[in-house]
């Protein structure tokens, strides 16, 4: 919790990480000041900071490649993003330190990584930095021997964080890198030489991960966390060589993630208290107890001005209303403001959220997660109050779901995750929300649509939840996409470029063409006994192709109604349902 006293500080909430434009003017840009070829025997805090930032920039360039290293042919990994956000938090913490020593630099970086750790790989990365910080504690400069000791301590700390360490992961890469550092440091005091050996050993260790972890070999990939660590070390080495590492062209996407971190509402109002015992101090404390941030309370005569940031404006306003009359209430959504400023806001957000409930009788609102314009408008047309963009490759965060739940008018909310990977985030949002929230665990888009059709605005929340959950079971879902790499899954051999089909979320068909896979799936789904086949075609497919496929399906299943809808979803060529 921060308590600020000047209004202007509130504008400083967003702190983008700027490469090459340090806040400290006498400091050289984030580059190492040593000429190529010279022996480097010691690094100071600024050198090490430049190296950490270069590691971050290098990871940013490789983020997508690392994300793609998942163990399922459909792209759904986020290791690269998680490590990048963790590293970003570390760099953010040190970027404006004036003249740091090596000890304080690592201490701050480790603290930043701890607070910003995302995902498993991010937590492990934060532990490595924590160990390094401990080894370098109190040091002004870092020699080759210090670096070796720091890497060893980092690896050791990382291993301590789990009771059954699994080899063939980032842990193995950290250990092998530190062993190489120790060996190299005993031979030569040149940090360039040592770091070169470290990067080489890390690369070898990454390449060996599939032989240590069968699941990697089966999927035909190396470990994503290990690769992330390798990329970080490589970035440090390259900056030591004097290279400036350009940030990725798609820094825009990272900025979007970063912006979502600065979420919540900016709430301002004037309070005319009922009782004179309500003063600035007690109000400030009570706002802090609610979890408010950046609290500013000022008074002029009997009127108290309140300015606070919070995830949910509801409790703040309720507190105010319980103490007196509210006036001049202003509530702004900072999450969306940031996104808009960066040109990242979903274009139709305002259209998603109706200004007022259509009828005061309906207090149940529905929030659905959907990818693609077409699917989103299908959901909207079926009466969904707010849509959170997301799906297979971009799972929305708990915070985005929470914001959508807070934004809809109803006090009771039904959430349709429409993807098995989103259900957990939805459950967390339910736990955090002050509204009455029910999750109808739809695992696919068609399940979500059939659940919506079962929704009855006259029924209670519990009745609706039951009816909608029952409707999920009535529908069969097929999804068609292209494998991004060779793999074996559920006993099916898949080559990169193969068309693959999922039946109710399980890989169960593969072939050369979408039509061939569609036919296999329809047979598995017993389409001949069904009444309606609905096909949603996605971004990878043109309207003509989709129509040709629908005609082929109509020819095969003349007794069924075949409906074709432009879903606009990414990655999946077709999503279809049989009911």
């Amino acid at each position, binding site marked *: 919790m921060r308590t600020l006293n000047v209004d202007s500080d509130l504008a400083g909430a967003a702190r983008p990480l700027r490469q090459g434009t340090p806040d400290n003017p006498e400091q050289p840009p984030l580059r190492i000041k040593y000429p190529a070829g010279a022996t480097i025997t010691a690094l100071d805090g600024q050198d090490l900071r430049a190296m950490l930032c270069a590691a971050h920039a290098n990871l940013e360039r490789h983020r997508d490649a690392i994300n793609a290293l998942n163990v399922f042919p459909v792209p759904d990994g986020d290791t690269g993003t998680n490590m990048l956000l963790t590293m970003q938090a570390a760099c953010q913490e040190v970027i404006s330190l004036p003249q740091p020593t090596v000890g304080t630099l690592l201490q701050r970086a480790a603290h930043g990584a*701890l*607070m910003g*750790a*995302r*995902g*498993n790989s*991010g*937590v*492990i990365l*934060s*532990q490595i930095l*924590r160990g390094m910080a*401990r080894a370098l*504690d109190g040091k002004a400069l870092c020699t080759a021997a210090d670096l070796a000791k720091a890497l060893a301590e980092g690896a050791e700390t990382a291993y*301590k*964080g*789990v*009771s*059954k360490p*699994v080899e063939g992961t980032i842990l193995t890469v950290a250990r092998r890198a530190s062993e190489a550092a120790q060996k190299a440091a005993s031979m030569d005091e040149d940090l360039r030489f040592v770091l070169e050996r470290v990067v080489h050993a890390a690369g070898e260790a990454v390449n060996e991960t599939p032989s240590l972890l069968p699941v990697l070999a089966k999927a035909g990939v190396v470990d994503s966390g290990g690769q992330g660590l390798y990329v970080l070390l490589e970035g440090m080495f390259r900056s030591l060589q004097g290279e400036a590492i350009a940030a990725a062209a798609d820094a825009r996407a990272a900025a979007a993630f970063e912006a979502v971190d600065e979420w919540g509402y900016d709430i301002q109002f004037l309070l005319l208290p009922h009782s004179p015992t309500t003063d600035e101090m007690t109000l400030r404390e009570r706002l802090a107890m609610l979890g408010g941030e950046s609290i500013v309370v000022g008074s002029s005569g009997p009127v108290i001005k309140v300015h606070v940031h919070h995830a949910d404006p509801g409790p703040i306003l309720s507190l105010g209303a319980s103490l007196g009359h509210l006036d001049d209430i202003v509530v702004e959504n900072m999450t969306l403001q940031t996104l808009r400023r960066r040109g990242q806001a979903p274009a139709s957000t305002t259209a998603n959220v109706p200004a007022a409930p259509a009828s005061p009788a309906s207090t149940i609102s529905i929030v659905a997660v959907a990818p693609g314009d077409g699917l989103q408008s299908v959901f909207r047309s079926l009466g969904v109050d707010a849509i959170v963009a997301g799906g297979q490759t971009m799972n929305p965060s708990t915070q985005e779901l929470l914001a959508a739940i807070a934004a809809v008018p109803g006090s009771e909310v039904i959430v349709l995750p429409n993807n098995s990977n989103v259900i*957990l985030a939805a*459950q*967390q949002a339910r736990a955090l929300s002050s509204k009455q929230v029910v999750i109808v*665990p739809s695992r696919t888009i068609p399940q979500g649509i059939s659940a919506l059709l079962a929704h009855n605005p006259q029924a209670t929340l519990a009745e609706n939840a039951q009816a909608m959950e029952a409707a999920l079971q009535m529908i069969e879902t097929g999804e068609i996409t292209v494998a991004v790499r060779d793999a074996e899954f559920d006993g099916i051999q898949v080559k990169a470029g193969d068309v693959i089909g999922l039946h109710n979320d399980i890989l169960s068909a593969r072939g050369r063409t979408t039509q061939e896979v569609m036919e296999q799936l329809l047979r598995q789904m017993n389409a001949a006994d069904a009444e309606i086949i609905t096909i949603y075609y996605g971004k990878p497919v043109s309207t003509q192709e989709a129509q040709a496929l629908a005609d082929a399906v109509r020819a095969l299943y003349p007794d069924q109604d075949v409906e074709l809808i432009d879903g606009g979803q990414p990655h999946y060529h077709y999503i279809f349902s049989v009911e």
Partner: protein
Amino acid sequence: MTEKTSLGKIDISPDAIAAIASAAVLECYGVVGMASKHPLDGLAELLQRDRARRGVEVSMVDGRIIVDLYVIVEYGTRISEVAYGVMNRVKFSLEQALGVPIAEVNVHVQGLRVSDGS
């Protein structure tokens, strides 16, 4: 937990589910052990691996499987992320092994282990 098939029924005991869950938990990064859910003398005891399933509670409510996990986390990790990782991992492992959805995985952090040498 019972599943009916055309040939007969499959019965999986909560103990078996707990064994799978505890194996999955111990592979989670940041978790250094399981704790008994009834802390002795107010202290959560670190359980040996074979007794680890005492830190797992499996219950069925209206046919939904609910798993409660009592864990010890390494000091200095981001506890929320570790717990989130545990939820995901345990849910994934159980659903893969059992083929039925797990309704809830609740993580109770019973204590922290401080292993800093300094």
